[in-house]
């Protein structure tokens, strides 16, 4: 999340008023069907959209609105709802504003069209998402190559049904000197050792 942490504090970039974001959203909503607007900060907001709107919106934002930079593409596993949420975070370098487009895709046979033709860097993110979440992006360059998990033979590790604790316990030894106490047992020992 380091990209988010920079928070538009680049020297010389003005922070926009929240009002600007809302006006921008209203203007955009006249051209595209948009879902909910979530304002995270004065210069960062998220807009929920439907999958078919993604490509036209990305093109519009990049070419007409100055959002020339794809900051990141990431996913969230909403396992209870059976969805993956994809977030395309774009940045307008000129006015220091970031907009995230959020959309849901089905968790079963998760599949999404690639946008590497709009931003070539997207291929890297898509390759990562395929590896970590098991979301397929057909035609994305190198999408089936190992990214950082070499020789992985488990379910994709960012899926919520992956047991992270079990994996870390099995694969990583504890540093010597680790010990822990159960709160209830410790209290018994301290307060009523005889059981009464």
């Amino acid at each position, binding site marked *: 999340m380091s990209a988010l*942490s920079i928070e538009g504090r680049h020297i010389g970039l003005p922070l926009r008023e929240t009002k600007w974001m809302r006006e921008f959203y209203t203007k955009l909503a006249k051209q595209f069907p948009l879902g909910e607007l979530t304002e995270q900060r004065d210069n960062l907001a998220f807009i929920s959209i439907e999958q078919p709107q993604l490509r036209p919106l990305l093109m519009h934002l990049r070419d007409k609105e100055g959002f020339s930079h794809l900051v990141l593409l990431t996913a969230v596993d909403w396992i209870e709802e059976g969805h993956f949420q994809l977030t395309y975070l774009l940045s307008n370098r000129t006015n220091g504003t970031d907009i995230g487009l959020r959309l849901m895709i089905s968790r079963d046979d998760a599949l999404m069209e690639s946008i590497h033709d709009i931003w070539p860097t997207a291929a890297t993110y898509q390759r990562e998402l395929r590896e970590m979440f098991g979301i397929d992006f057909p035609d994305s360059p190198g999408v089936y190559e190992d990214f950082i998990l070499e020789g992985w033979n488990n379910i994709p590790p960012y899926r919520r049904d992956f047991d992270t604790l079990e994996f870390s316990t099995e694969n990583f030894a504890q540093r010597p000197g680790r010990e822990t106490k159960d709160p209830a047992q410790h209290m018994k020992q301290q307060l009523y050792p005889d059981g009464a």
Partner: protein
Amino acid sequence: MSIRDLLSPFTAWKYLLKNPVTIPDPLNDRPGSARYRGFHKNDNEKCIGCGTCEAICQNGAIDMLPVKGTATQEGDSGLRPRIDYGRCCWCALCVDVCMTGSLTMSNEYKWVESDPDAFRFTPGVDEKFWDNAELGYQRPEDHRLVEAKRVTMEEMDADTRINSFAEIVNGYSIEQAKLEADRCVACGICIATCPTHMAIPDYIDAVREGNYERGLKLLYETNPFSNVCGRVCTRKCESACASRHEGEPIAIRWLKRHIIDQVPFEKYREIIGEPDAPTGKKVAIIGAGPAGMTAAFDLVRMGHEVVVYEAKAAAGGMTRYGIPEYRLPYDALDRDIELIVSLGVKVHYNTRIGSDIAMAQLEQDFDAVLLAIGLQEGRQTRIPKSEHEKVYRAVDLLDKITSEEAFELPHCAVVIGGGNVAMDIARSLARMQKQQYDQVDVVVTAMEDQQHFMADADEIKEALEEGIIIRDNCGPQGCEIDESGHLIGLKTWKVLSILDENNRFAPTYDDSDETIHACDTVIEAIGQFSDTSLLGEELTEKLEWNRGRIDIDSNGRTSESWLWSAGDCVSGPDVVHAVADGHRVASSINSYISSNESSIDKQS
């Protein structure tokens, strides 16, 4: 190579005179953002050591350990989380789940050490340079992993319930109970606070998985009065619950009742199991209340012969003769009693020790004797003219109501006292007035202000809903009698203070602020005491006493080696405390009679 490739290095020249995007000194000029998930902070005062952070950590990075200067006490394990930064991934689940909001993150992300073990540290205890960082990640207000509000317990509305003694509370449905059980993080901090140390997280887990027979077994391991406690427990556990810090405590009492509601009584015996083989030892218990019957339950299961002597016609003590039916229906109490009796406990009802059978007789006939006689006598205010026949003690009237003994129902009653017994008698009389006179006229007066009444907040709220009038800060000064000798009112003065500087009871009044509360009956509900005349003079002389109560050691044993005492008469009024006492003395009696000590005592 194209022309473009050849020229492009030169295009960079155009940026020469522009402001650089690069941060010149990134280590210092680039602080983490306001919500950055940097190094951990823990407010040691706020933290209760519940270990929920450890439980949720997906990297096994957190240990719970005692720290110097933080004591283990009720509601606080005294443990604090130590984090191993060799494993932490800064996902912040620990912060999101923290039950008190003590654990947060700073926006600091740079930390250099040569000693790798330094990266295993206890935030808030081991001082760090980011401890006072203002920015950093905290759980946003609306972002909660566990529901803050408890599932509402449905109950009868005031207009309906005032017409009868029917139970007010409906109990949870299976769906409601599961939702409520899901709020429990199973930290187990509550167990130490429960006087009988019930396996609370385990039986809540049984509710979650719908395994009610396992739940019942767990309840009976520590509490044979689970029917009673599922309804009227003082639930001290809930005041220690981790969930109370950022929301409502888990409805532990109602979940206990839910287990009880789900298991048919016919199954109890099978679940609880058979007593051990007979030992040939005999124990007499005086008083069939929760303390006496809990001890009877334990001792009979250990194989001892147990005989209970009860002065009244039925068992249960104050839970039957004090607590009204609308809070604790008799059939619920009867189930607890029946189960204990079914294990082979003999109960002699209507048998008063002292007059019917002497203590000396019990001492002679049994290996050990337990005195669990409760607090049956109501205290009197002894204000002027309070000896009038229409001035009652609340416990006496509650007893009459249970025993269905006739008394002249007041048209207009004034209760003195702000505790649960005051509420019990006020609400019982209100119901009877509604049935007989079709109107409620009960006033509760107490010396405290309403915020400081001893009664449960629920009791006060429900009493008010039922049309009972509460007048607080009223100190009783005397009863008003008319010329023909009828009681016509209670005189009170406004209370200015109750305790003196040494916290002793020494009320001061404003005597110019006098109120006459018109009534035909006054009921004193200012506390109870124990009638120990059954002991007889000789034994009373022999026993050690402590401020009017029989002196006992930590096992409930008196200064006489054959005699134990338990429950309200030695510990003060509280059902679950009496249950805990019962277990304690049973264990002590068992070790005494199982050793040769008792036979040696008998011979001497």
